[in-house]
């Protein structure tokens, strides 16, 4: 019996898995992956400056769905002025969209502005361009935030073509 137990103990020696090849593979893989890893994601906001266009005679469509407008966001130090440009709307219809948003607690009410832009988009769905006119002292970060809310909401696209301009 004792002999049997001793024999069993001898046979029960731990079999070690040779981890050296796995370690070698890890040591090769990790530097490779480290070199190709991107720890920050750089994206881009496509924008442009206004360019001269030939002035074709605009026809006045009857249906709102065919009308295109260009909302303008004028960013000033203490407020944002909003209005709409369109050759297909009357002055009365255009002035309806003249709204000013004052800064609240040191920040622009971007959610309110987005709600208004959404309303414009719902009314004139063919429009896809927006003009952003920042004042000289407006910070780049604020401009990007404004562009973000102008391009899309969490659900749908608003005005994907953002044009950056100076006040004329």
């Amino acid at each position, binding site marked *: 019996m004792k002999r049997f137990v001793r024999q069993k103990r001898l046979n029960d020696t731990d079999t070690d898995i040779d981890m050296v090849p796995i370690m070698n593979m890890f040591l090769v893989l990790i530097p490779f992956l480290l070199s190709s890893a991107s720890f920050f994601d750089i994206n881009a906001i496509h*924008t442009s400056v206004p360019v001269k266009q030939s002035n074709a005679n605009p026809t006045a469509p009857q249906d709102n769905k065919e009308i295109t407008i260009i909302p303008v966001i004028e960013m000033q130090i203490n407020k944002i002025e909003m209005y709409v440009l369109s050759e297909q709307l009357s002055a009365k219809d255009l002035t309806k969209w003249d709204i000013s948003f004052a800064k609240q607690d040191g920040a622009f009410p971007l959610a309110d502005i987005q709600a208004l832009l959404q309303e414009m988009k719902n009314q004139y769905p063919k429009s896809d361009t927006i003009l952003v006119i920042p004042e000289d002292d407006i910070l780049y970060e604020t401009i990007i935030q404004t562009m973000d809310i102008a391009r899309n909401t969490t659900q749908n696209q608003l005005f994907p073509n953002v044009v950056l301009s100076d006040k004329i």
Partner: protein
Amino acid sequence: MALGQRRYQRKSFVIPKLQITSMMDMFTIILIFLLFSFSDNPEKLNIEKGMILPKSTSQMDCSKNITVSLSSNSLKVDNQHIADVNQGEIQDFDHQHPEKSELYKHLLTLRHNIDPQKNQDNSAIVIFCDQHLPYKTINQVVKTSGMAGFPNFQFAVLKK
């Protein structure tokens, strides 16, 4: 006697086994993390030291075109120093005549080198700009670029 004992002790000496389980665990975690952040298109776009890009919800990729880097102290085009920036003002930049600036001349040279047959999007320049700079500084670059034949831009931003 003592010599015999020492020889006996030396014989019984067993090389200690290296405990690599915890190291394997660590490597496995690092490997998984790196596999998740693996990119087949690693960014070759260099961000100036100390520059903080603004965060945005934009999902569009940044193409590798001509890059203009505007930090709080320097203006570079494709990593080539063009001018110093001091308190938001580009040095040696005439606001009335941007066409006399070094930036305009440099961009114009690059514009001439671009193949006109290429896609229009390839002529868009990528602007890396510090989030704390005022619009007046950016505007100088944007205006000059537009004059040099680059009316389309991509503002580089960090993914939110």
